[in-house]
């Protein structure tokens, strides 16, 4: 049903909702085993009795989303010591997660209420998590600046984040370079550019809409479209 790739490992979730992993990483989810040549079922996830519908993987960690919309995480965002078997993400407990995405050391999740959560770390000054600072965020935290937007799709890299609202408007924050927002729109020294002296030539701290662009998103916010659990 889906695949995800970490730095040296691969995750796959089958149509039946079972998660497999293989490769060479501490984020395989098999406990002590850090190397699997063939896909191996992640027992800790199987023991939860839940069906899994999506997987995502960063460099050294992995995420699995259950049909009941609980999120499990294992490995380490910082490549330090992290759980070697899947753990329920308590910061998102009770919040229905619909979409999850991870790349490098950053992750984002979209909930059934249209909220965007981000966590991880990236370039020291990239502000790409959208929390108003450039600090590491090791547990999911809601992007408050997008509280007025019903988020229906999102993507994150280690330098910037894109999020699309139900109306199709794309919001971006993080490095200007990757967003394609040049000096013409906001010259360095702009009030939002708190680190304009940085060689990366500025970041977008507060989410701003990308001009002249609308994307097609699923009607996640509309009543009745999202099935009940």
């Amino acid at each position: 049903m889906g695949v995800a790739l970490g730095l040296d490992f691969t995750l796959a979730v089958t149509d039946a909702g079972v998660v497999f992993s293989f490769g060479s990483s501490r984020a395989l989810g098999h406990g002590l085993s850090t190397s699997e040549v063939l896909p191996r079922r992640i027992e800790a996830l199987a023991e939860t009795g839940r069906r899994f519908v999506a997987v995502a993987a960063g460099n050294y960690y992995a995420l699995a989303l259950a049909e009941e919309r609980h999120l499990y995480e294992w490995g380490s965002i910082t490549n330090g010591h992290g759980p070697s078997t899947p753990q329920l993400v308590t910061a998102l407990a009770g919040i229905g997660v619909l979409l999850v995405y991870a790349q490098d050391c950053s992750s984002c999740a979209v909930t059934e209420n249209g909220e965007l959560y981000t966590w991880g770390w990236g370039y020291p000054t990239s502000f790409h998590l959208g929390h108003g600072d450039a600090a590491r965020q090791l547990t999911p935290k809601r992007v408050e600046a997008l509280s007025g937007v019903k988020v229906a799709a999102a993507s994150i890299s280690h330098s910037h984040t894109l999020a699309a609202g139900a109306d199709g408007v794309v919001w971006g924050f993080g490095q200007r370079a990757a967003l394609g927002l040049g000096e013409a729109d906001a010259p360095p020294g702009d009030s939002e550019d708190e680190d304009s002296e940085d060689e990366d030539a500025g970041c977008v701290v507060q989410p701003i809409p990308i001009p002249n662009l609308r994307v097609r998103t699923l009607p996640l916010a509309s009543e009745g479209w999202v099935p009940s659990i």
Partner: protein
Amino acid sequence: MGFSDEEAVEGLAITEELRAVFQRPAAASSTTAVTAAQSLEFLSVVPPEILSIILTQLGIRDLACLAATCRLLWCDAPTPPLALPTPGLVETELRRRAEASGLHIGASLPEGALSWVTYLMKREFYDALRRQAPLAAGYRHSLCVDMGSRLHLACHREEIKAGEVGEPLLGHDWGSDAGASTVFVPPTLVPSMHDTRIVSVASGDCHCLALSAVGEVTRGAKTVTACSTTPTGARTPGRGGSRRWRGSRASPLEGAIARRWTIADASSPGVVPRVKRGSRPVWAMSSIQRRSAS
């Protein structure tokens, strides 16, 4: 019954639409109130073959509503007045889809919230969710698919230099006369993909993928690394021809991408499955490549 009144009304509305298509004078001239018996009577005049074709075009949600309504109608009718095939056409269609999804169904249909119809509806929802990828954030570039299914690229100008990620998409001299004064390329419609309907995008550090509605994968990649090898069936704009992925049928296909690895797969049946009975989803790993130097 696992369906709300609202859904039952929706089912009735669908039946009404079918009625309008195959209107019969006798039915039209009768009372304005639509009774259950009339609806059933109407269904009986539509040739089963045509009904089957119509049913294949309906979404699972509509089908489920129709299934619920039909059963309600059967309950209401004093006697089953019609020679409907057993099992019914709706049930047959639902069973076909369940089997296409690899789901075994018992001889009798379970009811309620945990019934396989509900399961199929959920399944369709998650399929749609999984397929949606209108945004991709990469290293120094962003890909977006707009309302018209066209591909937009925004990036640092360095990314469209010769040999960089954006170069195969925009060309290294893109905007050299107009916008060269800016360091950044604003969101730009990718000219070479202008007539291609894009459904999904993915991005990594050194490459990006775009999936078209007919199953073609287009890739922008750095040429200085091993990533430049073109995977089978994929095309790089301006370099070599294009090829459809799996025959003429639009095959849902998704690209997953990571920092150093790339994997593209052709996967399971679409939201409205059109696979043959008994066939299973196919995972075709087209390429796994590793950057030569990091």
